């Protein structure tokens, strides 16, 4: 029997207590995706501890989560439909655990946004919508949950739908559907509910998930390979010098001319290296590859390999306009220096300006506080090869690390052309640009040619 060749990651988001874990637990139970005896074991545990059974207990696996009845961290849950395998990422809705929600959502291709019909659109319903738009997740289904508590009233559903659709429209998100549902009662999740909600003739949540499209491997787009590492394992007589990395777009074939950015160095692809696999001449987007080059050149991790004869929107930039979510305990302030990681590169950066807060009506704020999203301008201590997020997702997103803590993330809106960027960055003077290493490499190559 063949197994589903497809896999999709879906994140479940929404405000705290709007029933996300219950929705996932119920979906697992209804599709018979739970291990045998698991449901009974949880019911039994509830009976012993004098608690009312909740489907959420199937997912909130950590001891503290069960004791406190709250999801703390995103869980990966596996389930299969007739169409494909899913990893459901059950994200916490409590604001304190926003970093965990983001970690979960950043792995997803599509999202379910859950809204409690009793409470209506809440603070984190809005914030999570905003974050999905910031993360570039465009496939979204909105579930208006707990309608059983509102006697399956169509008017309640319509009111929430209208209010939230208007908000999502501001974020340029068009949901695939709004589904009226009761996760606890299993209505409109995997089976329709014509008795309770005869007024709804749309699809169930599961049908909508199955209708979502896997992100296509962008083979057809421009070729780009961030250099993750360069290997030269000299043992067992191996003298290959291999450029390793994961292709983020396009295809490349042996013999093609390539350029590295930002250095501008050029060479040609000599071979595609593989282990225990048939010989290959060509590799494409998504593959973790290793290439050797005809002309040996010195480049370091973080440069981006593109084709010499292809026009690619990869820019060498030292200033960018970006949308950022800030997670640090201390606010992000002007002139603060931090580490920015993009592709395989790592560079010192600082905040040059905040244009506005996203999702709020505040212009030119002085700082980004924890959980704020802002449109900002960032300066980099040295030029980096990157793209706008719209051109290539991997080369257009970054994380911010401050003193060993991951404190934020963002996506590149555009490159800011700024001729004075280098001078304005005096404070970074003295940063080693790799000149010495490069000279050393040239000398080694000259005097020990057999080693290269």
């Amino acid at each position, binding site marked *: 029997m063949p197994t589903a060749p497809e*896999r999709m990651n879906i994140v479940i988001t929404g405000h705290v207590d709007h029933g996300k874990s219950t929705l996932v637990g119920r979906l697992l139970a209804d599709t018979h995706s739970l291990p045998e005896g698991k449901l009974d074991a949880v019911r039994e545990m509830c009976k012993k501890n004098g608690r009312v059974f909740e489907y959420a207990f199937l997912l909130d696996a950590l001891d503290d989560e069960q004791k406190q009845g709250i999801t703390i*961290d995103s869980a*990966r849950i596996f389930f299969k439909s007739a169409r494909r395998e899913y990893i459901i990422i059950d994200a916490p809705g409590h604001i304190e655990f926003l970093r965990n929600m983001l970690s979960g959502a950043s792995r997803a291709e599509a999202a379910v946004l859950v809204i409690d019909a009793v409470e209506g659109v809440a603070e984190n319903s809005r914030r999570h919508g905003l974050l999905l738009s910031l993360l570039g997740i465009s496939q979204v289904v909105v579930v208006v949950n707990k309608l059983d508590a509102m006697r399956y009233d169509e008017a309640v559903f319509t009111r929430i739908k209208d209010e939230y659709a208007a908000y999502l429209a501001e974020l340029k998100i068009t949901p695939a559907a709004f589904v009226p549902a009761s996760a606890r009662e299993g209505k409109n999740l995997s089976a329709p509910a014509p008795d309770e909600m005869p007024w709804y003739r749309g699809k169930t949540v599961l049908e909508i998930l199955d209708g979502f499209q896997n992100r296509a491997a962008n083979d057809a787009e421009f070729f780009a390979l961030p250099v993750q590492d360069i290997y030269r394992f000299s043992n067992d007589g191996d003298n290959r010098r291999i450029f390793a990395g994961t292709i983020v777009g396009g295809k490349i074939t042996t013999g093609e001319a390539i350029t590295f950015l930002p250095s501008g160095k050029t060479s040609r692809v000599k071979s595609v290296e593989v282990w225990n696999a048939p010989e290959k001449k060509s590799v494409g987007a998504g593959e*973790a590859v290793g290439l050797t080059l005809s002309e040996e050149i010195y480049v370091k991790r973080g440069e981006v390999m593109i084709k010499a004869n292809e026009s690619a929107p990869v820019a060498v930039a030292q200033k960018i306009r970006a949308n950022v979510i800030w997670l640090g305990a201390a606010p992000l302030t002007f002139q603060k220096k931090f580490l920015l990681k993009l592709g395989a590169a790592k560079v010192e950066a600082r905040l040059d300006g905040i244009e506005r807060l996203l999702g709020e009506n505040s212009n030119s704020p002085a700082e980004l506080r924890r959980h704020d999203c802002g449109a900002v301008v960032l300066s980099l201590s040295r030029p980096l090869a990157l793209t706008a997020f719209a051109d290539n997702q991997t080369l257009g997103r970054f994380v911010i*690390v401050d003193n060993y803590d991951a404190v934020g993330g963002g996506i590149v809106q555009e490159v800011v052309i700024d001729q004075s960027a280098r001078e304005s960055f005096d404070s970074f003077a003295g940063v080693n640009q790799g000149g010495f290493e490069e000279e050393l490499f040239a000398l080694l190559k000259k005097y020990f040619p057999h080693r290269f």
Partner: protein
Amino acid sequence: MTKLDQLEAQSIFIIREAYKSFKNLGMLWSIGKDSTVLLWLAKKSFFGHVPFELIHVDTGYKIPAMIAYRDQLARDLKIRLVVGQNKQALAEKRTFADGLDRLACCKELKTVALKNTLDGTGARRIYDPHRGAWEEVERGEPFNAVIVGVRSDEEGSRSKERVFSARDQKSEWDAGAQPPELWNLYKTEFAPGTHVRVHPLLDWTELNIWEYIEREKIPTIDIYYNQGDGKRYRSLGCYPCTTPVESDARNPQEIIAELISGKFRNIAERSGRAQDLDGGGTLEILRKEGYM
């Protein structure tokens, strides 16, 4: 790309990232199917090389066939293998077989042995593939990071793990306070003294592991397969606490069929592991203290 291609590429990316980021990197290797897939992925990542040491924690109670297979594979694949053991607990008979409860035994023979092997305070037996011989080392260099083959679908607390997951100086895990981990931009910067667990297989299921073993024709230890007595191991561990399952599956193909539509369709993988059954959350307690 198929899902197996995607899983493979993602795991290779993670393994390469770990190799780039840590000076003293090791890979836990338990002989089982997951760590065997991990070893395969490492060889793919580095084009046939394994540029770090493999680490095995030997409880002294492993199913004997596992130890024989381990030593043979290290010889055949020319792997540098580090074996750690809590010799003191074994000598003082602090084990389940000597009357200790299961959880305490796991803690002594696995968690403590693992901690002491990783931080270099415990004695190590090392197989040197160049000399083809074993040597004893009293104290070793600590490992800053280890690659571990745990999967999300095995157990609840593993479903919430980060790919790059920090442990404090006592090897302990604070599951409620994990840092954000966005996209594949893993945070590989850690304060000195931090010990890191790297998890390349979180997104793989038991089924995916077998599908990949079948696709790649990866050699695996034969106790996973029915040898004619209608029994096989589904998950490997210590013999006092791990029982074989009744199954006719004789090869990866038949195991895949069994997992998709056969008798194990809805039975948890670790159901043959007794230490998971002693009350709820047992594995989480072990993991917080430093277990895989």
